[in-house]
């Protein structure tokens, strides 16, 4: 599989998204699960704590009014007056106030219904008033004086004596005792006692009230029944673990009955677990325990009980297992949904992006692909698509504009895509510039060089080049104008090897100078200077060359004719009168050699009889052994010339092996012209001229003549 598939943006984004979401969801799931697990545990703790808290509130609510009631009753005016008068021994007043107080006290007990007994005890521990309430009959009554007991030595009397005004002694919850015997049937009570202290800060008595503890135990009984399904159990214990309340009634009142159960033994050591805490929730042996310290009176922090709830952990956290399953399904669903959504959404994003990419890629290679990209969302991708569409349209327009400009059509108006359309503005500026340059060029093309163009900047190479071109053309124009005026004495500094016009001007100047020189030379009959035509089209040059050649030829011909005529004449003049052929021949060879300016010459005279040619005369000729003084017809060059009666012209004789022997030298002359001497068709002899210079046709013609 192609690796690029995995590295495509779509897959990258998808994998990143999915990875991130997967990680995120996994983290969230992990965190959520842990948090939930903790939350469930906390919730279980909370519920346990709440249940004990509720019990605490309910119990304390029940107990809350007791201190107030105790204070309220103990602060009865009548009670105080009764105690005052009784202590002062004013029996009449004491009795009156006792009656008033007693009536109020009985009414109070009947109204409250939660108090078993209310007593006023003097400093010697004697009950001076004792009222009792029977919950069953809803009757309150005073105990007769003969039933009053001495309670000296009891905690609620002796400890209350040590308290300050407004403080309470609260006994532990226990069974009521009458005459030192536990009252039957059991009557659980809590005794609240408070010192009665007058405004002189004198202790004048103790007020004691016995709360029916059944009310408290009923609260726990009800809670136990309500939470029976949850298998939650409740305990109310003293700080030594003695049960006030246990589902099993036989376990209650252990500390008083010396039998039953103790929380410390049945569960754990209270002191170690609870320490000084007022409340707490913890797990102990797969049970969630929640405890709350209960103060029968907030003002008395030394007196407290514990209300404890206990529930099996597996029951408390049963909901957590359901949560685990549901939570896992939710997480998987979320992941799946995320997968689908991400896939769909990325595809939705990537498709137009791919199309944009394709279009941009094509654009980067100069191709415009106008494909409709379907993307209707008004978001960033929509912006990209829209911008790409605009970009391509703009570039297309720009291309059209550029094409028009390139084709020289500057007439098209360029529409700006926006106020910040830099390309459009550049095109407008470029078109404007090109128009300007075109106008300039048009003027220049009409030979109007008196134009100006200003360079836009030192980087405006076209402008600068045009300025240079105008300068150049002006220079060229001035030069050509000067030339046109016949003044070719002008100078021009070529711009370089590529300055063809300049070079041409220079060549033209040179050409014209050469023509001028040529003309001047011709005018001075000097045909030595040769002008070369520049080309086949150089008609002037060709004409001048032709004219020069013609003039030179005419001049040469005239000279040759004169030379020839003069030579003939001189030859005729000098050779007449000689009868001796040998002298004549000698004179002739000498004259001929001198006139033609050859190095040496010989003349062989034909001996018709012997058909042999014999050396008769020579000029600057040296005999040598290898050179013969006579030749038979057809022998050697001389014999061959004589035989054919035709001249032989030898040139560039270099090869040593050449067998042909010259008559004059063994050296190799440049040219050797051997020609017959014929008179009236008769062979008279053969002359051979050797020259180290080239012999012209004129020379040859002269010699032949």
């Amino acid at each position, binding site marked *: 599989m192609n690796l690029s598939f995995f590295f495509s943006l779509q897959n990258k984004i998808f994998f990143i998204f999915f990875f991130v979401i997967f990680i995120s969801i996994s983290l969230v799931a992990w965190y959520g699960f842990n948090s939930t697990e903790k939350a469930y545990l906390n919730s279980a703790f909370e519920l346990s704590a709440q249940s004990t808290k509720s019990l605490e509130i309910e119990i304390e609510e029940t107990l809350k009014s007791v201190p107030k009631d105790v204070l309220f009753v103990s602060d009865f005016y009548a009670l105080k007056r009764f105690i005052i008068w009784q202590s*002062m021994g004013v029996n*009449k007043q004491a009795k009156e106030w006792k009656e008033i107080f007693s009536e109020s006290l009985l009414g109070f007990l009947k109204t409250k219904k939660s108090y078993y007994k209310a007593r006023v005890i003097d400093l010697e521990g004697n009950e001076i008033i004792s009222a009792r309430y029977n919950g069953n009959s809803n009757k309150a009554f005073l105990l007769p004086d003969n039933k009053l007991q001495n309670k000296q030595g009891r905690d609620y009397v002796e400890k209350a004596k040590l308290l300050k005004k407004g403080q309470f002694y609260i006994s532990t919850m226990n069974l009521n005792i009458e005459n030192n015997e536990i009252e039957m049937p059991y009557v659980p009570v809590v005794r609240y006692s408070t010192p009665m202290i007058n*405004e*002189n800060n004198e202790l004048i008595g103790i007020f004691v009230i016995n709360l029916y503890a059944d009310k408290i135990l009923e609260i726990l009984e009800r809670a136990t029944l309500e939470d029976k399904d949850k298998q939650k159990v409740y305990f109310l214990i003293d700080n030594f673990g003695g049960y006030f309340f246990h589902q099993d009634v036989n376990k209650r009142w252990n500390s008083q009955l010396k039998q039953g159960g103790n929380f410390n033994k049945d569960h754990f050591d209270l002191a170690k677990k609870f320490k000084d805490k007022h409340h707490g929730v913890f797990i102990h042996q797969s049970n969630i325990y929640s405890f709350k310290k209960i103060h029968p009176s907030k003002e008395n922090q030394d007196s407290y009980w514990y209300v404890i709830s206990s529930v099996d952990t597996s029951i408390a956290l049963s909901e957590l297992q359901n949560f685990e399953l549901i939570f896992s399904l939710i997480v998987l669903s979320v992941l799946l949904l995320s997968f689908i959504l991400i896939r769909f959404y990325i595809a939705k994003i990537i498709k137009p992006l791919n199309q944009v990419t394709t279009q941009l890629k094509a654009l980067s290679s100069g191709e415009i692909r106008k494909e409709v990209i379907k993307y209707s969302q008004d978001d960033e991708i929509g912006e990209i698509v829209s911008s790409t569409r605009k970009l391509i349209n703009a570039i297309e327009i720009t291309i059209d504009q550029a094409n028009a400009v390139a084709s020289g059509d500057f007439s098209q108006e360029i529409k700006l895509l926006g106020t910040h359309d830099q390309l459009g503005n550049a095109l407008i500026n470029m078109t404007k510039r090109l128009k300007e340059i075109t106008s300039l060029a048009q003027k220049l093309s009409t030979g109007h060089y008196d134009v100006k163009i200003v360079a836009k900047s030192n980087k405006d190479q076209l402008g600068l080049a045009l300025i240079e071109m105008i300068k150049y053309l002006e220079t060229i124009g001035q030069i050509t104008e000067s030339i046109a005026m016949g003044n070719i004495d002008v100078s021009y500094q070529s711009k370089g090897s590529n300055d063809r016009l300049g070079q041409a001007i220079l060549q033209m100047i040179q050409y014209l100078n050469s023509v001028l020189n040529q003309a001047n030379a011709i005018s001075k009959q000097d045909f030595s200077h040769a002008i070369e035509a520049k080309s086949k089209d150089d008609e002037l040059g060709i004409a001048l060359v032709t004219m020069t050649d013609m003039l030179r030829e005419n001049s040469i011909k005239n000279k040759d004719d004169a030379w020839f005529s003069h030579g003939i004449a001189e030859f005729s003049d000098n050779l007449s009168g000689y009868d001796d052929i040998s002298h004549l021949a000698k004179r002739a060879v000498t004259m001929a050699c001198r006139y033609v300016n050859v190095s040496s010459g010989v003349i062989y005279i034909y001996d018709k009889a012997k058909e042999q040619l014999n050396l008769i005369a020579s000029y600057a000729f040296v005999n040598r052994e290898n050179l013969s003084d006579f030749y038979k017809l057809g022998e050697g060059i001389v014999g061959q010339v004589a035989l054919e009666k035709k001249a032989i012209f030898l040139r560039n004789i270099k090869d040593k092996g050449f067998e042909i022997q010259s008559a004059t030298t063994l050296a190799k002359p440049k040219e050797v012209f051997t020609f017959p001497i014929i008179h009236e068709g008769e062979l008279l002899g053969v002359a051979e001229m050797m020259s180290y210079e080239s012999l012209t046709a004129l020379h040859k013609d002269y010699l032949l003549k």
Partner: protein
Amino acid sequence: MSYFSITYHSFLILLVSISMNFLVVIEKTQAQTSVKQITPNDVYAQVMLISDELHFLLNYFNLEHDHEGIIKRYHIQTLLKPRITWQKTYEIMIKINILRSSHQLPIIEPVNMEPVLQLNPDMVYEQTQRILTEIRIFKFRQNIHSQGFELKTFSNKTPLDVYNALAHISVSFDELNRSGFTPSYVFGETMRIYNDLSTILQHLGIQDKTIPSTRNDQATPNDTFDIAMKILNRIKLIQVKVGIEVVDFSVFVKKSMTSSDVFTMSQMIIAELQTIKAYFGLKNYITPAASRYTNKTPADVDQLMNWNLRKLSLIYNLGER
């Protein structure tokens, strides 16, 4: 008719008018003559009769006494009010009860003073009449016969003279009874003060949360007397505030006090409280007689007297507010 002329008619009117005026004058004259005018001289004369009777009884019971000395000893100089003198008669009436009780006679309910701002001095005279009558009843019941004592005539006697005479009679009764007031009697009178003060407080709607002071088992009559003086001073301040004429009780201060002295001061307090009661509109509330208490100690009296002082402070503080 000439009988109905204006002149005749005017004459008749004038005649009727004169007749009416005459009748009014006659009426007034008759009324004035029907009420006996009691003077301090009359009261003093009556007190002297009591003194004579008492003197007789002391002699009768062979009880030696320094009659003159007592007079000198209890002779005070101050500006007293009839209510104070009247209260002294009440004290004597209590002592008569003691006398009766000691002679196996039933006690009698003493007459109590009506709360008034200014006690009519005649009421003191009436009290002396009652005392005199009670003494004669006692003599009758005890079958003691004596010659009649002659009512003497005195002049230039003042209410203070009456008081001082009553005071020495009271002391003489102690000699006759062979004892002064016990703390129990004083406690009874202090309870009367308590009741009066409670009544005033209740009437004024003042919440009374006062309690007795801490019991001082070492309390003496001197201590209680001091408290009583404080109460009187506090009452005086109240009286000054409300415009009641006050009495200077500083003349009663002595170095050594007995329960009888405290009893006397309790009587002064009760007398002064009547003006307060009258001022606050409690004119119909007559302080009931004292109950009988037994085995009371000066400490009991002191504690109760202190309580009374606290109660009185509530009334005084109300005035302050």
